[in-house]
């Protein structure tokens, strides 16, 4: 019997959180080995476990996978969350990349020098309100279905709903004029696997606080 996937990352969201969400939504149990110090990271590198010397790394099905997208693609395919054919997949990929672009801006905000933070935050608000949320609201409106692609749950819905939680953390009022997105968020959040993941005590990670940020910067040697 195949063992559980093993995730290698620091104890925080970063680039691993979307992988945690997708596995959880697919109902797949996973284990985590946290990188606590830069020495831990060095050890993984010296073991030859990290193809491009970077994490995330996920041990799954006898492989040590790196590159967030490659990992997500594999999980989505394996657990049938990637559409029925290459055309559905193309739409899913397009939406996922959009989610990823906005997600990246939000994720990098804590690393921003204090003097630039307000500007960056304003950019995030602007892009959220004028570029990304309207695009997804329009997709849902155009077909009137419950999910973004192919009238069934796919990774695109999981990634988008995860993002909507982060948008709410930035400013809850940003979601106000997007009723279909609010409904999608509710719908996906109530799926048994996702509901479980959203409960306290799950492997879902909280926003980065000062202490965790400092620790992460030490691990990755970011100045």
């Amino acid at each position: 019997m195949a063992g559980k996937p093993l995730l290698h990352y620091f104890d925080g969201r970063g680039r691993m959180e979307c992988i945690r969400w997708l596995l959880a939504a697919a109902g797949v149990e996973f284990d985590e080995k946290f990188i606590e110090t830069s020495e831990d990271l060095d050890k993984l590198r010296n073991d030859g476990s990290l193809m491009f010397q970077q994490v995330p790394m996920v041990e799954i099905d006898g492989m040590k996978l790196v590159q967030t997208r490659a990992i997500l693609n594999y999980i989505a395919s394996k657990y049938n969350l990637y559409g029925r054919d290459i055309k559905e997949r193309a739409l899913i990929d397009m939406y996922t990349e959009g989610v990823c672009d906005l997600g990246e801006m939000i994720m990098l905000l804590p690393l921003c020098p204090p003097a630039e933070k307000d500007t960056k935050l304003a950019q995030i608000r602007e892009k959220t309100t004028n570029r990304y949320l309207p695009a997804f609201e329009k997709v849902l409106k155009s077909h009137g279905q419950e999910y973004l692609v192919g009238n069934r749950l796919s990774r695109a819905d999981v990634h988008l709903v995860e993002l909507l939680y982060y948008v709410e953390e930035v400013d809850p009022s940003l979601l106000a004029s997007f009723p279909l997105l609010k409904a999608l968020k509710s719908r996906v959040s109530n799926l048994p696997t996702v509901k479980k993941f959203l409960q306290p005590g799950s492997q879902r990670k909280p926003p980065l606080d000062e202490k965790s940020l400092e620790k992460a910067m030490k691990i990755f040697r970011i100045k």
Partner: protein
Amino acid sequence: MTSVAIKPKPGVIAAKPKLCYFRGRCRMESIHWLLAAAGVEFEEEFLETREQYEKLQKDGHLLFGQVPLVEIDGMVLTQTRAILSYLAAKYNLRGKDLKEAVRIDMYADGTLDLMMMIAQAAFKPPEEKEEDLALVVQKAKTRYFPVFEKILKDHGEDFLVGNTFSWADIQLLEAILMVEELNASVLSDFPLLKAFKTRISNMSTIKKFLQPGRQRQPPPDGRYVEVVRNVLQL
């Protein structure tokens, strides 16, 4: 060595894919390479003015207000990786099963990261650009190329994955050529990559693409940066 070519369904004249982007590399070049390597002819519309961009926006073609844009098989696709992934699947360049696909994804994504660093450097002030490009060469030599040299050494095959030409091979060749433009001797410690470069460059569709006058774009210069800034109002 067989080259890959598309075979349109009988009785159906496949329309050529239509690409829309600035006249330059940046995010569209990998798409050019993939189509060319697959032997697929394509058409291009070059974005030169703000007005063209605003028209595309108004027509609802740009999901997130961004290019590259590719019209293919009745779809209007944006987002570089979505486009690349679709093309790779359509032209049988994504491996024969999920395990091969994930390896191709890992390798392709790694090389794409490297090439994006080069593309982004074009938009930085001169001193930062110099530093960034030097870093790219260093990363290529110490982080990326050794990995691919080892992969080729371990299996001794002609291609990176599954002994078959794939998207990963196209991306790697593209990355090698781009880094060589920054530092001509970058492959000096990588004999298998040198052989790989020669071998893949000699495949008929790629050889054709590498000839002058083809749809391959030159490295970004000051004029390119100016056009992009103007059109996107950066």
